[in-house]
């Protein structure tokens, strides 16, 4: 197996075109690196089960319920006190804090989930060693493709035909 190839394109359209061509040839597109999200690519490489929103929902509702339970417990069970003749279980006003807390919990949980699913933090990564990778966050669109067979020459040529400005090998 040869090392996967990293091809550099000037536009996302060129990258997508090259990816389609390579895939048609039976090569396996591993990933793409772009300075901004490109819908075709995010669709192509999206994780099959995106955990972020389910986790946010669970954390949000769970935290809200827990906060409501805490309010109820602390004012009805733990230390019931008469505050201006209000009912101990003043449910309408007990809804506000759970909402705020639920949103906060959803945000924190979502952030954690996103990092976890992205595999971040990852300060040291083989890609960072590749010189042209630094332009993937600026003005270049990179495609990582694994050739279907041991010799990657065909793939390289195909990529260059499709408009790759530069094709490099990535060594893990």
């Amino acid at each position, binding site marked *: 197996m040869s090392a996967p190839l990293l091809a550099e394109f000037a536009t996302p359209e060129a990258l997508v075109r090259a990816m389609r061509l390579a895939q048609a040839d039976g090569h396996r597109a591993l990933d793409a690196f772009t300075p901004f999200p490109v819908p075709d690519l995010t669709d192509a490489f999206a994780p099959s089960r995106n955990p972020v929103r389910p986790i946010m929902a669970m954390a949000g509702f769970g935290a809200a319920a827990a906060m409501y339970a805490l309010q109820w417990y602390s004012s009805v069970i733990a*230390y*019931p*006190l008469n505050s201006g003749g209000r009912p101990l279980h003043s449910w309408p006003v007990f809804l506000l804090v759970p909402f705020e807390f639920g949103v906060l919990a959803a945000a*924190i949980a979502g952030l*954690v989930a996103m*990092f976890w699913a992205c595999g971040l*933090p*990852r*300060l*040291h990564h083989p890609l*960072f*060693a*590749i*010189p*042209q*990778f*630094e332009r993937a966050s600026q003005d270049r669109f990179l495609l990582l493709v694994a050739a279907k067979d041991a010799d990657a020459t065909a793939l390289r040529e195909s990529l260059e035909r499709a408009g790759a400005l530069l094709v490099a090998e990535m060594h893990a």
Partner: protein
Amino acid sequence: MVQIFHPGADTVARVVLASIGAAPVLAMGLAYTLWRSPYVTAQDVTREQPVPFSHEHHVGGLGIDCRYCHTSVEKAAFAGIPPTETCMSCHSQEWTNAPMLAPVRQSLAEGRPLHWNRVHNLPAYVYFNHSVHVAKGVGCSTCHGEVQTMKLMRQAAPLTMGWCLDCHRDPAPNLRPHEAVFDMTWKPPADQAAIGARFIEERHIKSPERLSECSICHR
């Protein structure tokens, strides 16, 4: 482009992020532990005293009743610290030359009071009343512990508000027959739950809700 970070940096980054999340929880836990610890509550801290008065000797050994010295415990909020002359009522005959008792003799001779270090110190905004607790059948040892074993006095209970509330919310386990209030070795009998409930009835002890209201202790 060269690697900015070496591989180990990933671990460092994960630890840093995890500790940002954990810090508030840890801080809260630490604070809570500290607040409950003797550093704050002074529980079980033995205080040096000008005269090494031993409750072990006087109570455990000689069997002197609490009220001999703490005279106002049944009548007032403050249990009372004995005046020097109470000490000298015996020590004018016993241990008359003991060097340990020199400050006591000096106090009486010069009319200067002894300066004891306070062991049980409630904040100024807490109004504890000994007489009511005694009248309702809460014994000395419930709060002060086994005083008859203490060489120097120490605070047996944490004296935190939560600790007070534990009993105010459920006084039954700590209620004794009146004659046992000053019994330092009292142990609850097997049917304390039933007895306690009866005492609550008989002595008109208020409901837990009422006893845990702010105005019971704070003014």
